[in-house]
């Protein structure tokens, strides 16, 4: 019997089905003459089979905890605002403007941006971190969740308007999207705003 040069890594590759087809058949040929490799393969397979049985018994099916999403959003609402640099906030600010004005000419983007900046400077600081990062930590957890929900509605609403602008010809998608926002916004001012937009879409098409 020739001396065996097969590495243990190669045997593991074989057991894990990681060898290419030609390598597999070469190795299987080798197995017919090599006791050492045959024992190794059998040993590894026995370990895997044994562990499989115990692991399948441990977890025949997974019952996912309930309300993970709600818990996540509560945790996000409770989290400290992330510190972002002025530059990042500026670029985010312009990126958002750019998305809204997607297909317009650059000139109008610039004029609009300038106008917004001028107005915003008089009204308040336009470069504060984006809404979801500026939750007021003095609020109770529930108030923050509510605040978070409002921001969520607002984001979805902006999403509708942006998409409406982009697809322009597809009213059905816009209407269903707006209806979802309206449902989500029940009990808030956003419901009225969504309703007005719906009326506008109906009159446009």
């Amino acid at each position, binding site marked *: 019997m020739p001396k065996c040069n097969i590495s243990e890594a190669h045997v593991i590759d074989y057991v894990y089905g990681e060898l290419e087809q030609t390598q597999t058949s070469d190795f299987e040929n080798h197995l017919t003459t090599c006791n050492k490799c045959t024992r190794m393969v059998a040993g590894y397979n026995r370990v895997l089979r*044994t562990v499989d049985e115990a692991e399948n018994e441990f977890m025949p099916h997974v019952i996912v905890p309930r309300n*993970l999403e709600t818990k996540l959003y509560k945790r996000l609402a409770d989290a400290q605002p992330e510190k972002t640099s002025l530059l990042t906030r500026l670029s985010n600010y312009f990126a958002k403007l750019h998305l809204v004005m997607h297909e317009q000419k650059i000139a109008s983007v610039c004029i609009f941006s300038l106008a917004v900046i001028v107005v915003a400077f008089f009204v308040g600081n336009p470069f504060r971190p984006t809404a979801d990062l500026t939750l007021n930590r003095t609020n109770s957890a529930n108030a923050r969740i509510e605040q978070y929900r409002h921001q*969520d509605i607002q984001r979805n609403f902006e999403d509708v308007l942006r998409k409406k602008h982009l697809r322009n010809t597809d009213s059905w998608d816009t209407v269903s999207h707006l209806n979802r926002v309206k449902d989500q916004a029940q009990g808030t001012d956003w419901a009225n705003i969504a309703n007005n937009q719906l009326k506008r879409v109906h009159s446009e098409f």
Partner: protein
Amino acid sequence: MDKMIDDEMLVAQFKSGSQRAFDELMKRYQRKIFGYLLRSVRNYEDAEELTLEVFFKAYRALGSWEPKAKFSTWLYTIASNLSIDYHRAKARQPVYILEDEEAIETKLVATDISSNPEKQLEDKERGRLIREAVDELSAKQKTVFMLARYEGMQIKEVAETLGMAEGTVKIHLHRAIKKLQTLLRPLWENNEI
């Protein structure tokens, strides 16, 4: 939301402000991630806590995430790092949090294996001992072993998930299997499998 929309599309939608896109991503992966972490930490509450932490980190980092790998790989990377940290933090405590009686029972069973070869172990106890052997692996060995065996990943994907070279993954796998072989040997010597 449409199942046909792929993860990367949802990520793009989230980046442009769609909250619902993240909900959908979470819906797609919470079962897998929770299952993976449950197997890893063996404790329902801790697995839930870690799952939340995975999605929390993902939510906060997704805005600046550049898709060099699949989204699912990235989630597994976060989950694996958290579970490795968890195991390191718990390294000096028993992995199983057993009630006293259970602990005593386990010890008795362990004694049975080595001192009473004729005794057949109950399936349940046998399963538990095997899982304890798995939990004896180092954090990295166990993570590599779990990803390759129970998350359906090829060695290449495991390497990508853990930021390791493929050769390193194989070394961990090899050590894991060797160690399991040693730890489980009493079972095979005493029982026909």
